[in-house]
Structure formats: structure tokens, C-alpha cells
């Protein structure tokens, strides 16, 4: 009864309601707080906490099986018999970093997959999936393009759904009228983005951070690049980028190994033949500095970035843990504590490393009322500089490790989350034991190792900064709460 994603390629959120009803229904999301606050905190009177034995919790054990199809697609499979359904996710190295001189080509190709196959137009395809209760999904990003299917596992549902999925993914016909329509929708999407200061900031940031590198372009392309893209370009892109050798097939659900092999073989055999595409080149270091874009909003959006790491980088566990303490999205991170809790300057502030095929960004993202934007920017820069200089405290590191161990069981609780993990492991060519390895490596890290890794990849004076908002006279920041910061209560362990 809750939302499940509609199996349709929505380019601009299908108008106002799709955008707004979602917000209205769960308005008021993170009412959250910080960490090292204070107040008259009594000693630990939480009985339940004292009773925890401090061991890492148990988790669902995954038996990841893998093999390669005759055509060279890598397959990862987890058998999960509890629910009579399965999830199939095929990931191609067919994102916008393969666009070449035609930004938007990868997105258009992906969006056109379900617009026509031999004997079926777009509506017939949609009726085919929906008549079986199956959800088809597609999406295109910087590194990857994805086609996915969720279906009931009973043979009379599974087989026709798979047949249609294989055709759509491997043998799309790319009808001309659909291309025109989807281009128009993309163009409408570009217009729509112009009202959104966060979007504007994000686009400018990637452009400044990546310069001439393909990651600089938005995945969807631009109003200049999209209209000229031809059917021939789509067909050529599909032939090389949707080739079996360039695909990773992730499967989770109510299937035997034999059935899973048959599913993978069918999907793989229908794809064009060909090898994996080469990764894009590594980006070159950008020029640090601030870019301001004037925009008539109430808030100013602030984005700060540097080049981060690629997915193979051995420093990933240290950087991930280091970032978790700095601004990893939860409450009690340094950024959240200083910017939101102690000063009430923002609704949300977070930092993130996005490891990609080649060096992805490290980003800090927040927004605040325009008249405090300069002071807030300075504050955020100071927090980062201080963190790089002193590193995490032992307490922060211990807490972060407990958090990571405690959250591990959540990461593979549903078929949807497992299929996502398998897709990433396959796509970035990580070992099958990657999740376990990551956990072990993280738990072994020292304060010094985290600090060293952070400083190896980040520097306080290398930030590429974009601000989007109105030019208004600036005010000084309010004083932070003056309550003494106490050692956190902590969770018993060891």
C-alpha cells in the first residue's frame, strides 16, 4: 500500500502533483538533532541500552553466486525464496560519460528502450508489462544506464515478462515519432529545472569541477545538444553500449540457480554482441575558487566540492568513515551539529564522497537564508579545515564504527536493497566479498589512518565553490549555543 515506483520514465515529474503530493504527504521530514549537545544530561538512565551486550548484531547471510554468460555478461545472483517475486537489474557502462561529443545521447537511448520493439509500440509494451503486474524501469546516469524488471515468479508471469524485457533491452526499434516526443519532454525538463536553485547550483558545480571531462555535462544533455541527436546515433550507441560484454546482470528472488541461469542467458543472448567499453579518462585537477550565480530565491544554495576517488581506490573505507563523521547525513555529524543544531542556520547539511568509474566528486551541500550565506560559507570551510587539521577524535571514530556495524543488517534486508548492491559490485568489478571486506577494513582503521586518508585526498584550499541566490546585504552569524559540549553517552561495547 505504500508507494512503489511507477514503471515509467518520467522526465519532468509529470507536472506539479507528482512533485508536490509526495512532499505534502510526508512534509516535515528530518526533524533531527545533533549529537554532542549537552544540557543537564543525567547519567545513563536508559535501561535498555545498559542491557545490550555490545556485540555486533546478526545479519541475513547472502550467498552471492556468480558466473559469466556465453556472450560475456557478468551475472550475480542471490536466491531468496520468501516472496513469490524476483528483481532483475541489468547495468550497462552506458551512461553520459560515453556520450562523446553528443551530450544527452546516453539518456535518450535509455529513455527510448521501451518505446518500440518489433510488432509493439510504446503503449503495447506498457500494456504487456502492466497486464502481467510487472514493473519495468529504466534510468541513465553518468557512469551507468540501467534497465530493470520486477515480476511475480510464477512461470506464467515470469516468462512473458522476461521475453518482453529482453526485447526491450536488446532489440528496441527506436521509432522516430517517439524520439521527437521524448526530446520535447527533455526540453520541457530543462525549462523546468530553471526554477530550481539547487539544480542550477549542481549543474554549475559539475561544470567547474570537471572542465572538459565528460562528467562535466549533465546526464540529460542540454537544450543545445538534444535537438540534433539522430536515430542513427541512438542505434549506433545501443549497438556498442548495450552489448552483452558491457552488461552486468543482477538477480534476486524466487528462482533456482537453474532458472536464474536461464534468465541471464535469455537476456544476454538478446543483447547486441560486443565487449565492455573503456572507462573515461581520469579528470584533471580543477581550479579552486568561488562562482556566484544570481537568483531571486529566499535562500542561497551553497555547494563545495573537490575531486574525490574512483571506486577501486583502496582508501575508500577510510574516506567513507571519515566522511561519516564530518557530514555523512545522520545527526551528530560535525557539519550538522555546528551549522544546524548550534546555530539554526540550515535545514540540512551533508557531505559525501561519490566514488565513480573514475574520480567522482567529494561534495558539501547546504542552503541558508541569503543574508547569512557568506558567514555560513566561511563556517563550513572552517569546519572542514579544522577536521582535516585535527582528524576525528577517538570517540568519534569508535562511534562511527559502531554505527557502521549496527547498520549492516539493514543493508541487505530487502530484495530491492540486495539487487542494488549486486548491481554495484558487478558494475565496479568488486570482489563478491566486498561488503564483508569493507566492514572488516573499516573496523580496523585508526584515527591516524582516517586523518591521513582525508588529507591525502582533500585540502581546505582546493575547494571549488558555487553559490546560487540573491545578492543581499550580509549579516553576522548568530552565536552558537554556549552550552558546554559533553562527552556523548555512547553505547556500551568492547
Amino acid at each position: 500500500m505504500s508507494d512503489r515506483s511507477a514503471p515509467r520514465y518520467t522526465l519532468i515529474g509529470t507536472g506539479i502533483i507528482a512533485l508536490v503530493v509526495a512532499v505534502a504527504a510526508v512534509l516535515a521530514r528530518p526533524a533531527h538533532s545533533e549529537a554532542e549537545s549537552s544540557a543537564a544530561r543525567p547519567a545513563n538512565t536508559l535501561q535498555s541500552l545498559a542491557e545490550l551486550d555490545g556485540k555486533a548484531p546478526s545479519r541475513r547471510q547472502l550467498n552471492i553466486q556468480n558466473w559469466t554468460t556465453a556472450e560475456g555478461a557478468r551475472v550475480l545472483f542471490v536466491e531468496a525464496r520468501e516472496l513469490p517475486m524476483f528483481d532483475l537489474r541489468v547495468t550497462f557502462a552506458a551512461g553520459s560519460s560515453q556520450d562523446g561529443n553528443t551530450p544527452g545521447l546516453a539518456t535518450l537511448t535509455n529513455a527510448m528502450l521501451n518505446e518500440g520493439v518489433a510488432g509493439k509500440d510504446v503503449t503495447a509494451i506498457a500494456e504487456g508489462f502492466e497486464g502481467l503486474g510487472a514493473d519495468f524501469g529504466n534510468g541513465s546516469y553518468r557512469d551507468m544506464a540501467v534497465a530493470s524488471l520486477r515480476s511475480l515468479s510464477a512461470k506464467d508471469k515470469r516468462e512473458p515478462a522476461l521475453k518482453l524485457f529482453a526485447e526491450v533491452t536488446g532489440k528496441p526499434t527506436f521509432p522516430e515519432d517517439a524520439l521527437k516526443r521524448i526530446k520535447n519532454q527533455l526540453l520541457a525538463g530543462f525549462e523546468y529545472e530553471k526554477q530550481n536553485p539547487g539544480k542550477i547550483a549542481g549543474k554549475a558545480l559539475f561544470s567547474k569541477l570537471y572542465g572538459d571531462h565528460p562528467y562535466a555535462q549533465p546526464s540529460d544533455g542540454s537544450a543545445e545538444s538534444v535537438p540534433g541527436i539522430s536515430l542513427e546515433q541512438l542505434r549506433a550507441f545501443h549497438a556498442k553500449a548495450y552489448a552483452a560484454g558491457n552488461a552486468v546482470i543482477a538477480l534476486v528472488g524466487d528462482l533456482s540457480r537453474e532458472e536464474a541461469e536461464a534468465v541471464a542467458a535469455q537476456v544476454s543472448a538478446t543483447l547486441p554482441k560486443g565487449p565492455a567499453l573503456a572507462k573515461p579518462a581520469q579528470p584533471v585537477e580543477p581550479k579552486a575558487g568561488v562562482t556566484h550565480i544570481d537568483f531571486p530565491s529566499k535562500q542561497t544554495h551553497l555547494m563545495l566540492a573537490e575531486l574525490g576517488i574512483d571506486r577501486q581506490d583502496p582508501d575508500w573505507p577510510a574516506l567513507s568513515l571519515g566522511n561519516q563523521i564530518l557530514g555523512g547525513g545522520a545527526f551528530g555529524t560535525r557539519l550538522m551539529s555546528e551549522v544546524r543544531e548550534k546555530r539554526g542556520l540550515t535545514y540540512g547539511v551533508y557531505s559525501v564522497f561519490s566514488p565513480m568509474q573514475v574520480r567522482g566528486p567529494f561534495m558539501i551541500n547546504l542552503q541558508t537564508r541569503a543574508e547569512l550565506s557568506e558567514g555560513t560559507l566561511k563556517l563550513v570551510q572552517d569546519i572542514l579545515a579544522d577536521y582535516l587539521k585535527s582528524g576525528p577524535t577517538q570517540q568519534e571514530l569508535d562511534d562511527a564504527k559502531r554505527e557502521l556495524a549496527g547498520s549492516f543488517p539493514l543493508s541487505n534486508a530487502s530484495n530491492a536493497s540486495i539487487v542494488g548492491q549486486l548491481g554495484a559490485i558487478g558494475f565496479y568489478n568488486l570482489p563478491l566479498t566486498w561488503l564483508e571486506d569493507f566492514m572488516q577494513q573499516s573496523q580496523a582503521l585508526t584515527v591516524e589512518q582516517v586523518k591521513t586518508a582525508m588529507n591525502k585526498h582533500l585540502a581546505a584550499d582546493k575547494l571549488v565553490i558555487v553559490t546560487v541566490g540573491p545578492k543581499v546585504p550580509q549579516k553576522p552569524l548568530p552565536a552558537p549555543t554556549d552550552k558546554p559540549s559533553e562527552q556523548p553517552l555512547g553505547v556500551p561495547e568492547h
Partner: protein
Amino acid sequence: MNALARRAAGLLLSTLCLPLVAFAADVQPTHEFILDNGLKVVVREDHRAPVVVSQIWYKVGSSYETPGQTGLSHALEHMMFKGSAKIGPGEASRILRDLGAEENAFTSDDYTAYYQVLARDRLPVALELEADRLASLRLPADEFAREIEVIKEERRLRTDDQPSAKAFELFRAMAFPASGYHTPTIGWMADLERMKVEELRHWYESWYAPNNATLVVVGDVTADEVKGLAQKYFGSIPKRAVPPAKLPLELAEPGQRLLTLHVRTQLPSLIYGFNVPSLATAKDPRTVHALRLISALLDGGYSARMPARLERGQELVAGASSSYNAFTRGDSLFLLSATPNVQKQKTLADVEKGVWQLLDELKTTPPSAEELERVRAQVIAGLVYDRDSISSQATTIGQLETVGLSWKLIDSELDELKRVTPEDVQNAARTYFTRERLSVAHVLPEESAHE
């Protein structure tokens, strides 16, 4: 609950031959009980992974608020993270974070809810923390002074600087002339500016009682386990009288209303809303199920009528959607929205014409058997897919309970829906898709203002 509308909308056909496979897996055992202090507890077992979600739902939200005090429920939600008897401000979040839990809260017209997702052995901590802030919230004035600034930033981020959200906020205010649904959940900025922590204390004392809450636990637990824990942590919190809560009832036929807005956008868009009942207020539930079916026919998938005809066939819109939430405490709205295909020089007037064609067709022509069969297939599959997420199962249960319905509806609604006939669909369309029930918004780019 849009997906419920979509999924459950089918099944009008009388022969409902559920494929065996759809229910091959046993339905999860679900238990309910009520503590002596009135706290209702629903437990659904899902033993696939050693994790659990705990949610507590309070029967209070923005539709309970009065003019001048809008945004109270949501502001109180924020302050629920600012300390109670056993813990200081922000400390609960830190404890839960260090346990690897995901936690958050959300507020809507009809409810305020708090949740934690965590490894099963940590459930007692979540419940003890939740019980503590129900029993003994501190509400420190200095914390409120900073938190209200955060809430204003939230409003700027999600509404004031989002032209579409701003338009929809004003549209709702117009479409609900009589009920508390008029009020935006986050509150009007003028009310946030003058909100006092004393008002929050009064709000908390009025509504945060065990007998006004539902605790929902889904995951790798048993009913006995949860019963013991609920009794241990919540059992001693006394029952308290809560104010009478009146259902938000609307005028049936307020007359056509038109709102013309110029906002900072490049593309025009159209919003339609018809005043309709919900399952909680309808005299005949079949009319509500018919409306749910209509929503699925219009926008229940990429083969549904709005994408197939408006977006592709006529290329009238760049995007369009419909939604109907049947699971509200009071009367509801049947919503439609669309952005014209400006590349094809389509205007709002063209789009309105196209929308009315769809609505009028529903009045005159029964849906085809194939169409109904497709909706039915999605409903059946959706029942299985939804079980992949413990959080979505808990949310469904909590929401139904909080708007005055029963979680048991999940199991019985297939039967309810199959009673709906194609004639019911036509009757619902004729009754509800009228000008007297309609609110219209024309959301236009600012440049047009100078014309």
C-alpha cells in the same frame, strides 16, 4: 497512498481468481492488542532478515490546528528530538545513530509519526526512547529558539523557493474552504514567526497521550516479545483525556473556484481538484473504491489513459498525473495536474479540454474488460511487492489506523473492490466530476504578468 489507489483499484470483475502464486508465501502473522492505558499496538511478523521497524503514530496533524497556530504539529515533531526525562537535547538521535539505526519523523494533515529501523536486538532501546518522550518531553526554550529558525529554513527550502510547491499550497487552501485541510502542514510563515514554546507545550499536553497513539512494529519479532516490551516501557504512562477531534468535513459543492498565479517558472501548468469524500466520510464505500479505480485508469501506469492519450496520442502534455487519497480522516480531493506540451504550442486551454474529454468519457463509457484486467494484475502483484519493505508495511498499517480505519482493510479490500461495477465507475464520475466541486489553478510564468 497513491500506490494503494492504483493497485487496489482493480478487481471490479466479480470473478476474482487469485493466482495461487500470489499468496503462495504465507501471509505474515499480524497481531493487535491494547494496553490498559489505551495504547494500541499492531505487530506484523516478517522474519526474512534480523531487522525491525518501530513506528509510533499520533492522531494529530495540521488539520487539527486553528488559524494563527498553524505549523504547531510539525514544530512539535522537531522538538520531540530535543530531550526528555532520561536524555538531553539531540541525545536520542545520537544513541540511535551509534546503534546503526535509521530514524526520522514525519507530519501530515492527519498524523504525526516517528520511526526507527534497526537490528532486532536493539528494539528495546527504540521503544524506551519513544516512551520517554511521550511521557516527559522537556521542550527547552533555548532549543526552540534555534529550532524554529531551522523550521523556517525548511519552509524556504521546500515551499517558498519551490514555485510548484508554493502554488500547490495556495491551491489546497482554496480547494478546502471549510476544513482544517486548508492549513499547510509546515505552517504559514507569519505563524512560524510568532510561535511560542508555550503553545507547543499545550499542544503536546493535549494530544500526546498513549490513548491517542498507535505503535506499529514490523519485522523479526513475535507478538509476545513486543507485548512485553510495550508493557514495560509504555505501560506506566497514564491515560489522559484528549480533546474531541472532529472529522474535517468539506462543503459538498462549494462552486467552481479559479486561482491564477504567476510564479518564477518557465512552464505553465494546470491543477484540478474535485471535492470528494474519503473512505472515512463516504456514505457508500463503493463510490470511494470507484474513484480509486478511476485514478488507476487515468494514471496507474505507462499504459493508463493520461500517458497513453494526453502525453503520447495527442501530445497535449509534457507530463500529467492524477491522484486520489481515499485514506484521509476527513473529506478528500481528486487531483489532476498537467504541464502543456509547449514545444507543440499547446496551451492550458487545450489541456483543460483534453482533461475534460477524459473525465466525460468516464461518465458515458464503461471501461473495457482488458483495461480492468490490467489494473487487476497490478493490484495483485503490488500486494506481493509491497511485502519486500518492512517500512512500507508498517506505514500502511499506521496510516490506516490513524485515520480511523483498520489495518485489516489490507486483507479485506480485495473483496471490497471486487464489488465495484463498471456502472459504479460511471456514477462516481457523474457525481463528482462537476464544476460545482472543482477548483482550478493556472500556474503561469511571471512574464505573463506584464502582458
